[in-house]
């Protein structure tokens, strides 16, 4: 060891001890600073990974979970129309009601055409209900509107009036089913005049000039307002919401039902039928 790097011979033992302690503290402080820097880097890495993870989940669930891909064209559109036709074709329709007018039980379905949960219900549980109860004349389903997922009131009114206007030709349920089948991604602003016109063109047998004229009738806009009043009176704030009862009698809420699980609906309908 060279004299220059060793302890200063002029220092007392106490001074040398203090010098060593100061050096040790400086080293400890430097090590602590390095460790802190490392921790900050690790924290940054974790936060970055979490942000990436959340973005991936949001993107993954916005496609399939938050609605469909919008207006379909060509063979895809033909296949969807065929599916809807096989589901509701041949079943009596009157305005917004699907099913035998004398059916003993009525189910009121409060939905928002842009609501992805309503889409899920319409595509998963509703076909079973229609095949099992509506087609057999035991149940009729009345579609009512309730604004939830659609954020612009004017758009909500336009799309709902368009559906009700198809009901003037007793084809509302085609329009409603097609809307849900071809629902676009939530909040993407896909509902435009050309979207509504495109859907109307897909409805089998719909007279387009008459449909366009019916859209201007104040009765349908009033019906949307009336739907909202009924939903408010029932305390509904979410969609889909349901009322069920013997036709022409008091309707009660159908609350404890998961829209995805048809068994809850079947139990409620069977109870009304019994």
């Amino acid at each position, binding site marked *: 060891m060279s004299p220059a790097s060793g302890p200063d011979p002029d220092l007392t033992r106490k001074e040398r001890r203090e010098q060593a302690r100061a050096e040790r503290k400086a080293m400890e402080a430097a090590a602590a600073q390095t460790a*802190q820097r490392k921790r900050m880097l690790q924290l940054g890495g*974790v936060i970055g990974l979490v942000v990436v993870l*959340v973005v991936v*989940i*949001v993107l993954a669930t916005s496609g399939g979970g938050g609605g469909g891909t919008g207006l379909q064209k060509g063979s895809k559109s033909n296949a969807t129309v065929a599916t809807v036709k096989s589901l509701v074709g041949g079943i009596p329709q009157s305005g917004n009601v699907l099913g035998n007018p004398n059916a003993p039980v009525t189910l009121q379905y409060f939905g928002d055409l842009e609501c*992805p949960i309503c889409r899920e219900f319409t595509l998963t549980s509703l076909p079973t209900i229609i095949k099992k109860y509506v087609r057999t004349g035991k149940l009729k389903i009345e579609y009512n509107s309730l604004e939830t997922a659609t954020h612009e009131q004017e758009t909500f009114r336009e799309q709902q009036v368009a559906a009700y206007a198809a009901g003037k030709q007793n084809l509302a349920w085609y329009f409603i089913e097609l809307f849900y089948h071809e629902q676009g991604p939530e909040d993407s602003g896909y509902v435009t005049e050309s979207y509504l016109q495109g859907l109307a063109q897909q409805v089998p047998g719909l007279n387009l000039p008459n449909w366009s004229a019916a859209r201007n009738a104040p009765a349908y806009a009033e019906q949307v307002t009336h739907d909202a009043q009924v939903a408010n009176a029932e305390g509904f704030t979410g969609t889909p919401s349901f009322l069920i009862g013997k036709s022409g009698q008091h309707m009660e809420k159908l609350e404890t039902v998961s829209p995805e699980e048809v068994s809850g609906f079947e139990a409620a309908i069977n109870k009304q039928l019994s």
Partner: protein
Amino acid sequence: MSDRALRTTMIVLATIGLGVASYLTYVHYSGMPPLCSTTHNTCLKVQTSIYSKLAGVPVALIGLIGYVVILASLLAPQREQTRFATMAFTLAGFGFSAYLTGREAFSLHEYCEWCLSSAAIMTVLACLSTWRFLRGAPAPGVPAGPSAEADAGTPLAAGS
């Protein structure tokens, strides 16, 4: 706040969160409606929505697994790595909770009290675990709490 007190607080919070997640998982698989103070059971609407599952797995079950992992990292012998693991798991849980709360607010327009309570617990856990990780191991001999070395191998649940 001593490291031991901090860890005890986090274990209590994670246990409450585990209880909430367990209840929601049970509700999901049993098909019974969750208890909810709102008149039209918004919890049921949230729990049965399309966002209640991720890749076919109920989010309640994902939450339950998350809380179990967080608890395991808190009960394991405490070292730099376990503190880091707790922070990473709770931050991941916080991110996932933020996503779910966002879905409630902007997609479903409905709120579930159980989900919100779990999100609040996860937020506090993430804050505490980040603070705990950044301040490092407590210095040996500090009276505020046991050192990381002294604590190693002594799960808090058994020692407290």
